[in-house]
């Protein structure tokens, strides 16, 4: 739905309007039959609960640490992308600089742990709040920018953060910070070989971000954000406080992304600027949501489920050859999903969504580019 932010001057502009039309209908649906709406919400909750239980039971079958590592990463990126989705998907503000919040989370909790002995549980909350404050401070000037100007501003700020961390000697500079090797401990979130605690933490994190998204989807904020995304000017004229709702989305999104950063630091027990603040990371945070379905409840999780295991396995089993095969597979996959499933992988499942899109497309042959 970035197209709202990147106003198309050709036929492509038809598509978002079609989307908006669909939403309208959804809203009418919603008013007309609150009962069925509530049932749908209950069903979503039930699916989430079942999925959570299934994943929680998975380590009973999969003992292999390598596979468990992939599970942790998949859940972590699902949660991160879900956090990104709050701002990028629901609010339509495409950020490719979320690595800065991730890095803030990683550095704040690690510095507090290494220098002050503070448990990462508290450290990650402090990091999250700090990241949210940074997001608010940045949001104040940034939300005046539209489309690519906004996106490039987010990239530029994250890159600035990266350069500052590389040159800040107290925080380890390029050497990074190593979390000292100690006995297994839940308080320190440190486990030498055991991956299970990390699986459960990441699962809890993913569930939390999902629940938050689930709740706000149906809240006043959720409606505001969609209004902002669909048409900022109209939303303003209707009295929606566009600016404040964007700020809230940014703060929430940054808070959870920073939690992910703190978790990553505890999980890997070593951080350096390039691995927790690099541009690649910003892309990886956004990518699952984009591939799975931007602005959807299940998109980020679905995208992460496809993307992370595939990239991990191709790297492990093709990367060692040094002939670029892993890159080719990764690149082609992204391209193919983006082209074949522009609405994301969730559209494979969503009956309502499809039903909505088709008549619009039929009514507007121009919406499809010339054959």
């Amino acid at each position, binding site marked *: 739905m970035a197209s709202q932010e990147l106003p198309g001057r050709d036929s492509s502009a038809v598509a978002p309007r079609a989307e908006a039309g669909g939403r309208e209908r959804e809203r009418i649906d919603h008013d007309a039959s609150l009962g069925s709406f509530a049932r749908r919400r209950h069903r979503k909750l039930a699916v989430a609960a079942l999925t959570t239980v299934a994943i929680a039971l998975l380590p009973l079958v999969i003992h*292999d*640490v*390598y596979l468990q*590592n992939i599970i942790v*990463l998949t859940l972590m990126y699902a949660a991160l992308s879900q956090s990104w989705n709050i701002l990028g998907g629901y609010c339509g503000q495409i950020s490719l600089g979320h690595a800065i919040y991730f890095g803030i989370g990683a550095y704040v909790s690690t510095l507090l742990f290494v220098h002050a002995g503070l448990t990462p549980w508290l450290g990650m909350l402090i990091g999250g709040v700090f990241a949210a404050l940074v997001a608010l401070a940045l949001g104040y000037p940034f939300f005046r920018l539209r489309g690519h100007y906004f996106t490039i501003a987010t990239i530029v700020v994250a890159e600035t953060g990266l*350069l500052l961390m*590389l*040159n800040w000697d107290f925080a380890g*500079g*390029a*050497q*990074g910070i*190593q979390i000292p*090797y100690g006995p297994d401990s839940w308080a320190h979130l440190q486990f*030498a*070989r055991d991956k299970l605690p990390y699986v459960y933490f990441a699962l809890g994190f993913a569930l939390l971000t999902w629940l938050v998204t689930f709740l706000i989807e149906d809240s006043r904020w959720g409606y505001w954000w969609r209004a902002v995304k669909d048409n900022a000017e109209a939303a303003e004229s209707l009295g929606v406080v566009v600016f404040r709702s964007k700020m809230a989305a940014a703060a929430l999104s940054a808070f959870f992304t920073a939690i992910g950063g703190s978790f*990553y630091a505890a999980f*890997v*027990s*070593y951080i*350096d600027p*390039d*691995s927790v603040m690099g541009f690649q990371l910003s892309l990886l945070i956004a990518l699952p949501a984009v591939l799975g379905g931007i602005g959807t409840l299940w998109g980020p999780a679905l995208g992460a489920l496809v993307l992370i295991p595939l990239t*991990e*396995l191709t*790297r*492990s*089993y093709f*990367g*060692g*050859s*040094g002939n*670029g095969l*892993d*890159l080719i597979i990764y690149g082609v996959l992204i391209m193919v999903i983006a082209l074949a499933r522009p609405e994301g992988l969730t559209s494979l499942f969503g009956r309502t969504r499809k039903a909505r899109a088709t008549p619009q497309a039929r009514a507007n042959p121009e919406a499809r580019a010339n054959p």
Partner: protein
Amino acid sequence: MNRREIILGGASTAAVLGTTGLHAQQPAEVLIGAVYQMSGASAQVGVDAQHAFDTALDVINNVHDLDLPLAKTAGLPGLGGAKVRVIVADHQGDPQKGRAEAERLITREKVAALIGSYQSAVAVTISQTAERYQVPFISADNSSPSLHRQGLKFYFRAGAHDEMFSKAMFDFFDALRQKGHKIETLALFHEDTIFGTDSANAQQKLAEERGYKIVTNIKYRANSPSLTAEVQQLKSADADVLMPSSYTTDGILLVKTMGELGYRPKAMVAQDAGFSEKALYDAVGDKIEGVISRASFSLDLAAKRPSVGKINELFKARSGKDLNDLTSREFMGLLILADGIDRAKSTDGEKIREALAATDIPGERTIMPWKRVKFGPDGQNLDADPVLLQWVGGKFVTIFPQSAAIAEAKWPMNT
């Protein structure tokens, strides 16, 4: 993955069938995991490392008439002639991925030991993982001194680290001073990575201790699109010695930019990395005739250690390149590791660790200019004497220390 497992399974079954008749209890194959960057900016290093390992495996697994550990026998005699195989994994320069690959190699592929990793940041997570799983890690080509100070038991480094390398440079300066050359001022030029900052920190410390003045200390962003302003600052400072710590890409750009801005440094003493890569000299060699680089290796060592020339031929047949500072250490690292496994007579991590800790290989039985290989309690080999090489007439000649030198240094490089 499945197909691969089937193929692997088939291969090891065949290997088992081939040897079970004689050595039923012995492993048919000893696996060693190598973690390198195989894609991205430093993929070249990983691909070259693979050739170095293949050369080492040739020496270990086949009979060669060379005075090197395990050369004269086929396979590991201590393990009933078991062959060694290396599995290469790609860490993409990312510490998290390096850790994941190390874990995979240890738990799934059941490697007996690890070797790696070029990038020091990745070596941190690999060495920690190795410690947690009690599997030895040979840090073949990492030079960051912070690595052996982590207090790890399973970490071993046969080569020198940046402080040892830098010390050799300053010993060289001191020697030149005694001969009456004027060396007062230094200019440091280093990239903003672990390698660059560690190197610069060591050089800064030594300069203070020995009374050299650092007139400019430039930290630059690795892989910058332009180094013009940086070189302009170096030119204005015009120190007696320019000391770059750069990888190949930035090294090429640095030298080209110096030429473009008409800066001819009086002397250049480089912290290896890019300045030991053939690619750099192919690109700009004629512009820096007389540049000096620290190294762990030099081809002219062949005069004193005959195996050097033969190993270089084996390596060149595979890669089309001469052995360099990195590939020689990778080759030697694998040989030392295999020697440890052979003496341990086991693939058990703790036993290999003990055997490695007891390693004592005289320098003559290596292809390196080292006095010997003997690890300290922190896993660092203190006898890994570095050498200084000078690029003269299209090749490197060893100029320092006196014991290894085959020629006098040409100093200064430009007048």
